[in-house]
Structure formats: C-alpha cells, structure tokens
C-alpha cells in the first residue's frame, strides 16, 4: 500500500506539505465562508441571549445546566485529542506519530478556545465574567477558591497556555523555513513567529528539551483538567454526580473523544489537502486500535458507574438511573451505548472493516455518542432532584442549538484557516539532518 512518508525524498515532502499554504481554491474559500457564517449565526444567537436573558434557553428549574455545559465538557474532552496523544507518542518515541501530532495539537488549542467560551456563554450575567478572576480591587473582594469552578478556571487557563506553547514550539523550525521564500506579508509573519530561528545545534537542543519538558507537563495538566471538569459535577451533592469515579471516567471519555476527533480530522485533511501519502492506513490503523481500546475502557467505566448505582438501589440515585435507562432519557442513553461501543467495536474490532473509512465512520459515531453521553451525565441528574416535586424535563431551544452548531462550524473554520497558514504536518521532522542521532 502507501509508502511510509519517511521514505519519501525530503524535497518532495517539503513541497507536498508546503503546497497547501500557497494556494486557496474557490471551494475552500467558500467552505470557510460558510463555516464562518454559521459561526457568526451562533454569535448572533448569543447576542440575542445576552439581550433578552437566559430565559431564551430551555434551561428551567431544576435543570440549570444544559447544552452549554454539555458543549463545554465535550469540547474540553476533544482538546485531549490532541496534546495528550501527541505527548504520549512523543514521549514514547513512536516514530509513526510524525504526521499526526500537529493536527492533534491544533485540535487541542481550538477545542480549548471554543470550550473555554461556554462557561461564559452560560453565565446569567456574562458581562461580569471577570469577577471570577482574582484581581486586586479596592473592596478586597476575591473569588472563592473553594468553588470547583475556580479550580476549573485555573486548570483551563493553565491548559490553554500550555497547549499553545506546545503547538507553537514545533512550529518554529517550519516557520523559519517558510519565512525564506514567500510573499512579503507571509515572510513578515513567519519571520516574526519563528523568533529568529537559525537552525543552530544549540537551538535544536533547546527546542528538543523544551518539547520533552512540555510533553511531560501537558500530560499532567491534561489529566488534571478533565478531572477538575469532572469535579464540577462530582463535588456537587447531586444524585449520580457525587461519585468518585467521575475524575478518571471523564479523563477516559476525553481521551476517547479526543482520538475520535483526531481521526475524523485526519480523514478530512487527508482528502482535502491531498495528504494520502502521509496519512496512511497505518496511521489510521494504529489510532483505530487506540480508539477501540478507549471504547472498551469507556464501556468499563460506564458499567462501573451504573452497576454500582443499580445494585446500591438508593432511591434518589435510582430516580436518575431510571430516568437514564428506562425513563425519559433512555433513548439517548442507549444511543450512547450503541454509538460509543457497538459501532466502534464492530468497525474497529473486525480487521477487515478497520479501513480508513471504517475508522473515520467509527470516530464520527464516537464523537456523536460522546456528546450525547455528556448530555446524559448532566441533565437527568438535575431533572430528578432529591425532592421529587421539583422534577422537570429539559428541552433545549433554538438558541442553544444554534450556538452548539456554531461551535462545530467555528472549529472547522479555525482548522481550515490554520491549514492555510501552517503546514498540517511538521515538515522539519522529516528532515534527514539535524537529529539523525535518534
């Protein structure tokens, strides 16, 4: 089948990977524009929400957290694609990772940017979001560090900072190359961004060490971020949220959806940017196996979570469990199991079906399934509070739908712009020179 990209001549690699940057087709422009418009529509919906009030959402007592929080958890989960996978692979020196890491790191940064907006979108008085930040003020008012939301804010800000650095570092050598022969504005852009990289040994070593260090740091931060996201729920005194399993469960789910996002992104990039010889079946196969592993892990956690609740038979928890598995939300719960387990198990477990298409389809299924899974975690608990008389049912409105759809469009748009500014695969990693020693 396809040759390993490492075996291709470096000039060809360079040409192949830099080519998408120099040309923007009309269809590409159009697609970007459409995504922009959908994203802008989401902003309009948000503007409407800011103007009218949170009542334009389907949120109602007692379901105070809904689609926005689902989106938040989902996108923060997707962000684990990224960095976590690339960091693990980098640390374990898996050579096949080379064409995969940049896309993964970009997903992380964009997913975090998008996910990080939701806590603000979701605020009753979003314009006061800065009150959550600790800043000096004459009234000596500080935010409450006992609140998991503050931990969350801290973790996410750290993670965003870390992942931007982590995306940026391996871009430096590529940008230095791009600054050489290019249109004037691009020369200026890449020149500035490459921070005067000359390619000296000292620089290579510094970069190498920085990336190793960041890979270690980002791993720890990524695990903690999603644990803290899980604690937003687990620290609450709500049935089926107040659970010790939530930290690892959310981390596993995040990596699961992250890998799926990466596969989907690769599947699309491969076609759109004509990277068939770089993103080969081998890459998909390896990632698919990883995805299958995570699917099984997800199933294990889901069972562990639900089985203990069912066996314990505590009435308040059973109300939520029942709503999930047999009541109003049951169709969604079982859809989740189907999309997150049955589909990937069949498509990825059977070698014959584990093709590029198969892996992409399974990943899309997992992405959908994981979004719904987050809904199933967030909503039924709130809809079935401890005092039954306050029970309710939550139905999102068009505003929430518009903003959710807009975030997907925004992701696509950011990714498409990124792909036209930076090579989607780190070119220098294929360079025969400076690190022949590895």
């Amino acid at each position, binding site marked *: 089948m396809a040759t390993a990209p490492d075996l291709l001549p470096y000039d060809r690699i360079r040409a192949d990977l830099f080519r998408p940057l120099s040309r923007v087709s009309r269809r590409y422009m159009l697609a970007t524009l459409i995504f922009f418009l959908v994203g802008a529509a989401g902003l309009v919906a948000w503007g409407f929400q800011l103007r009218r009030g949170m009542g334009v959402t389907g949120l109602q007592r007692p379901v105070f957290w809904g689609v926005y929080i689902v989106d938040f958890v989902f996108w923060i989960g997707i962000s684990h694609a990224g960095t976590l996978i690339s960091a693990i692979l980098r640390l374990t020196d898996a050579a096949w990772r080379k064409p995969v890491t940049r896309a993964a790191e970009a997903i992380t940064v964009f997913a975090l940017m998008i996910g990080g907006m939701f806590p603000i979108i979701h*605020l*009753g008085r979003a314009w006061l979001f800065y009150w959550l930040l600790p800043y000096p003020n004459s009234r000596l*008012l500080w*935010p409450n560090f006992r609140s998991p939301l503050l931990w969350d804010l801290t973790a996410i800000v750290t993670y965003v900072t870390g992942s931007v650095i982590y995306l940026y570092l391996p871009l430096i050598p590529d940008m230095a190359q791009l600054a050489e022969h290019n249109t004037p504005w691009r020369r200026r852009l890449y020149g500035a961004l490459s921070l005067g990289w000359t390619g000296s040994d000292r620089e290579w070593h510094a970069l190498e060490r920085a990336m190793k260090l960041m890979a270690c740091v980002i791993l720890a931060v990524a695990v903690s971020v999603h644990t803290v996201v899980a604690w937003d729920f687990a620290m609450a005194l709500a049935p089926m949220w107040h659970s010790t399993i939530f930290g690892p469960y959310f981390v596993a789910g995040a990596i699961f959806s992250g890998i799926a996002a990466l596969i989907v992104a690769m599947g699309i990039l491969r076609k759109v940017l004509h990277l068939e010889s770089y993103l080969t079946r081998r890459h998909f196969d390896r990632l698919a196996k990883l995805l299958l592993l995570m699917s099984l892990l997800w199933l294990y956690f889901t069972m562990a979570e639900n089985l203990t609740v069912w066996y314990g038979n505590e009435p308040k928890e059973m109300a939520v469990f029942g709503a999930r598995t047999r009541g109003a939300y049951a169709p969604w719960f079982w859809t989740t199991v189907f999309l997150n387990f049955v589909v990937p198990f069949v498509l990825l477990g059977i070698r014959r079906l584990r093709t590029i298409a198969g892996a992409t389809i399974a990943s899309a299924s997992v992405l959908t399934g994981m979004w719904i899974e987050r809904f199933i975690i967030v909503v039924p608990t709130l809809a079935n509070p401890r005092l039954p*008389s306050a029970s*309710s049912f939550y139905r999102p409105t068009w505003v929430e739908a518009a903003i959710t759809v807009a975030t997907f469009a925004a992701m696509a748009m950011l990714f498409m712009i990124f792909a036209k500014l930076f090579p989607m695969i780190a070119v220098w990693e294929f360079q025969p020179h400076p690190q022949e020693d590895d």
Partner: protein
Amino acid sequence: MTHTQHRWGMAIDLDRCTGCAACVVACHAENNLPVSTPELAAEGRTAHWIRIDRYYQGEFPDVKVKYMPVLCQQCDEAPCEPVCPVYATYHNPEGLNVQVYNRCVGTFYCANNCPYTVRYFNWFAPQWPEPLPLQHNPDVAIRPGGVMEKCTFCIQRIKRSKEDAAQEGRPLADGEVRPACVQSCPAEAMVFGDLNDPESKVSRLAGNGRATKLLEELGTKPKVFYLHKAT
C-alpha cells in the same frame, strides 16, 4: 437575654398546615417576586420562594395528601455556599444564607447543589405592567435579570424589627420578627424566631418530638424544622 447574636430559625407544624398557600401569596407580595404569564410559566419561569410540595400517598379510597411548605432551609452547612465562585451566596453572622444579587454572575452552581431546589433564577429582567409596580415593597430589591434569588427569611423584616427595637432602645422580643409567610399563616403552622434563645417558641418547637429536618441525612444542618403530622 444572655446571647447577643441571633440565629434565625423556623418551625413548620405539618399537623396544622392545611396547604392553603396563603404563605405563597404573602411571599409574592412581600418580596417583589416577578409576575409570570402563561407563556413564561409554560417555560418554567415562575418563581416561588416558598412552595407547597404536594404528594399523594396510598390508593383510593385510602388516599392521603401530604402538603409541605418548602422554602430555603437556611442550612448551617449550606451546599450552595462553597460552590459559588464569587461569594454571592454566603453565611452571615446571624446564620442566614444570604444571596447578594450585586455579586451574582449566574453560574447556577448554587442551584444545582441545593438539595431542596429552592433557588430561583431571574431568567429575564422582570416586568410589571403599570401600575402594578406601585405595589412593590421598597424594602426589597428588584432583582435584575441573570441573578439567582431565593427566600431570605424576610431579612428586610428582621432588619426593620431590629431597627425599631434599636430606636426604642430595647431588645427584640420573641415573635417580634415574623417573615411574611409566618405572619400570614391562618393555621399558625409556622413559627419564626431565634434558635440561640432556648426560651423562644421556635427553639421549643425544634426540640419537640415530632420535629425533623428535611433531608437531614445530607448533613446540611437546616434551620427549618418540620413537625410531622401526629396520628
């Protein structure tokens, strides 16, 4: 008067309560609760700082109905308090679980973490057709859209009574402070007072054999005591 600090509490005798909802309207009138419309109500936008929970028990013909007024339990270990990232809800020195509207940014976390679901959100900026605003109680804030609100134990009445007593240079008497719900209750099912005063009526009722607390097992230490129906 051996104590200087008050610790406000309430006792609700379910053997007296008839579920007549006088307390609910009293609360609406006292606390400037937004007036809903059928459209808003259909979206779950009504607010009732005190509500009557109603449950049927048994099957016909041996059906019973249980009515139970539920308001903010003013927990000593309130789950809503630690989760607020901006200290918009906190415990004040008199044991009240206070909601500061100015500070609230609307994360909803407090409401999620309230096991009694007694927190209500201002989904929209409230509107009153003219001349209904003439009825507004000037002692109580008109809450803007986007903030959480809940029962305050009629803090404005506590303050007014304390101010009256201070003007007259005397201590507060037991029963002098009456939140609107307590004041209105025809069956006198609700009693309000100082739990730090062992002789107060509410302290004595809290020690009654029928007294329990709602969801006591969660360790929230509510300051509302329910006296269960005697048989």
